[in-house]
């Protein structure tokens, strides 16, 4: 299982702090597609970290990885 963390507005959009999904072996980009369909939300532009490290869309996920989605903050 992959542990997924949602931050800021994504917490509200999914109504979840976190969830576990069966996505080992998938790429980050495949996981994003899966989540966007599951929750009918957009992750376009969301920053993605695997195990507390930002990573590209092509990264392949391993069992027990933690994936965090964070919307970039723009205000100031």
């Amino acid at each position, binding site marked *: 299982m992959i542990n997924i963390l949602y931050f800021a507005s994504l917490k509200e959009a999914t109504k979840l702090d976190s969830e576990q999904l069966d996505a080992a072996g998938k790429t980050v980009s495949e996981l994003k597609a899966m989540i966007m369909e599951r929750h009918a939300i957009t992750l376009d532009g969301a920053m993605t970290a695997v195990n*507390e490290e930002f990573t590209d869309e092509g990264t392949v996920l391993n069992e027990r990885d933690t994936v965090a989605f964070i919307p970039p903050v723009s205000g100031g």
Partner: protein
Amino acid sequence: MERYSRQVLFPPVGESGQNKISMKHVLIIGAGALGSALSEMLVRAGIKALTIVDRDYVEYSNLQRQQLYTEQDAENRMPKAEAARRRLEMVNSDVQIKAIVTDATSEVMGPLVINADLILDATDNFETRMVINDLSQKHRTPWIYGACVGSTGMCLTILPGKTPCLNCLMKSIPIQGLTCDTGGIISPAVQMAAAHQMAEAIKILVEDYEAVREGLVFFDLWNNDYQQFKTGKMKKDGCLSCGSNPQYPFLERDNVTKTAVLCGRDTVQVRPPRHMRLNFDTLARQLIQGGYQVDGNAFLLSVQGEGKRIVLFQDGRALIHETKDIHEAKSIYHRILG
């Protein structure tokens, strides 16, 4: 030096650090919430010179979180940079403070970066941040990204030649994030983002690069979240801003938001640097939550608020009605789209 004694007592600053601080020139882009918090801390810390650039004037809705400004400033619609300068002079008359009331374009910022030891981001949009990022790389000047909305915020230090840059991290300009005008903001989120930026600023001013935070911090004070993410993997040799063959794409005229006053119509057209495909559903929901009246069809959104009517097209183009002021039009555009 008695004035700075408590800062000198902090061992990583010390007398040699204070001497370094006292010789540094800092450029702050933006005099809103982060800009006023940061400029006050820098001036109190005793830097040599501060330059602050902002295009807006003080409004009543700023007073809830923008710490340099008073009711009198809002009453007088004082330009923020100038109102900031006047207050900061009373706080520390030894610091040379320059206030520049204008839109922070690459033409305006370029010459200012040359004289600065450090750039602090206090803007409210990623377009300007990408320009800062390119200028930082071109002139090898460190900059610190900071942002806040709602109860959340972020901070990231960019050291040219060492850390990934914002273009490595974001690849393109993110669109349709929440802004303070759509998601609201509470003052502690401002102070928390500013505290992170200022701590990083002091590290750079005293030249303690070892202490600089690696990676990006994200916090959410309402939900009690705090996370640090490493960024090292994102540094790309092919990055057009910081890679081995840099082009500084955001310094190109083609890559900036264009504005045009539409003759005789009391309307300004704003055109983003690239075609976007706005998600009207999400955007309409955010704007309604932000107190705007929203109307529209599949091709355009008509948005009414703050005495202005804005028509947004799906490619990101906008008509801002009831104004001929291109700075005001760009402000409104960025407030809505981030």
